[in-house]
């Protein structure tokens, strides 16, 4: 990995961390413009880092990727830093939409739809919870005072620098045309169908799910049942005997 890339990663982490720190909901306001500026700088550097990874002929997909990824990252920052839980829930919905778009870019149409459906339901439930429980008296005290934001952001920034360094040094300049190592026996009984077999995509996914991974499917069903029973047992009011 080149020294310029390393410096870029550190710059992204430092400006992003400072921006998030200044955007944090605190009692003393007035740091928002500086935080927005720093976070925007970090986003611009991030787009530069993405563009350095694009190969030849990636332009249209790269543009869509940059838009969706920028939406996802900005919405993620907003989810963490908004004061009102209702805004947090709405920005998290934007995160879900952005990730679904990124799924769609990667031949995962079914997952894109499933993520939106599952999480949209979850977000609506969350929304109702917030409205029922937390909104009686506006933005409350504990939403305005984050706990130890400096320590959390420093440790998270170190984690981010490490992760990005490993990712970039491993995959820098690699195009998307990586194929499995020749001669390696494939574990899967069902072949992967990419976008050239449009219309067969979900069928292939379902075949793989029910042929290669039937045991994990059974376990997932059992986990859902146990979770449902557990949730009812936890939330039910105790009747006095």
């Amino acid at each position: 990995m080149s020294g310029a890339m390393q410096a870029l990663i550190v710059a992204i982490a430092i400006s992003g961390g400072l921006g998030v720190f200044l955007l944090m909901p605190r009692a003393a306001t007035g740091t928002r413009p500086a935080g927005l500026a720093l976070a925007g700088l970090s986003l611009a550097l991030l787009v530069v880092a993405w563009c350095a990874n694009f190969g030849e002929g990636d332009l249209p997909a790269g543009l869509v990727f940059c838009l969706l990824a920028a939406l996802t990252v900005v919405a993620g920052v907003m989810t963490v830093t908004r004061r009102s839980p209702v805004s947090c829930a709405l920005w998290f919905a934007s995160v879900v939409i952005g990730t679904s778009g990124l799924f769609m870019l990667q031949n995962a149409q079914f997952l894109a739809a499933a993520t939106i459906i599952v999480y949209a339901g979850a977000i609506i439930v969350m929304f109702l919870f917030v409205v029922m429980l937390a909104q009686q008296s506006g933005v409350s005290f504990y939403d305005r005072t984050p706990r130890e934001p400096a320590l959390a952001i420093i440790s998270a920034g170190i984690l981010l620098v490490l992760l990005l360094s490993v990712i970039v040094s491993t995959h820098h300049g690699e195009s998307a045309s990586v194929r499995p190592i020749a001669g390696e026996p494939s574990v899967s009984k069902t072949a992967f169908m990419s976008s050239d077999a449009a219309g067969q995509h979900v069928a292939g996914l379902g075949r793989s799910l029910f042929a290669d991974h039937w045991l994990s499917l059974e376990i997932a069903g059992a986990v859902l049942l146990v979770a449902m029973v557990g949730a009812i047992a936890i939330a039910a009011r105790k009747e006095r005997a």
Partner: protein
Amino acid sequence: MLANYLIVGAILFVLGAVGFLTRRNMIVMFLSAEMMLQGVSLNLVAFSNVWSNWHGQIFTIYILTIAAAEAAIALALVVKLYHRRGSLDVSLWQDLREPDQPAIDDDAEPAASVPAPPAWPTLTPAGVEPRHTDEEIEEATHV
């Protein structure tokens, strides 16, 4: 292109971690945890696409299932905890900390920094208020 998806996944994971560590509202903490799951899902789908097999997507479906189960149980717990203390503040539950950890004093907010309640628009009173009889006043206080 693979590196870019991994970068976005790492950023989502780290942002979720920051949110989980700093926010005190239990619902926002839960949303942050979900955001970390989104970052991991993005990684898995990217690997699935690059290696041209279904395993990453199957893993992601599994993550969706576990996230649904987790959401059900977490929301049940949040409702229960809210009924106990009447607040979503997670600091109210610091009695559950390790015995050698010091207590967190969160109530040190300076009073001057508390924002005033929003100023609602007021209507200028028009006309003259009619004289109330004693019976009317008596009745109004008892409604």
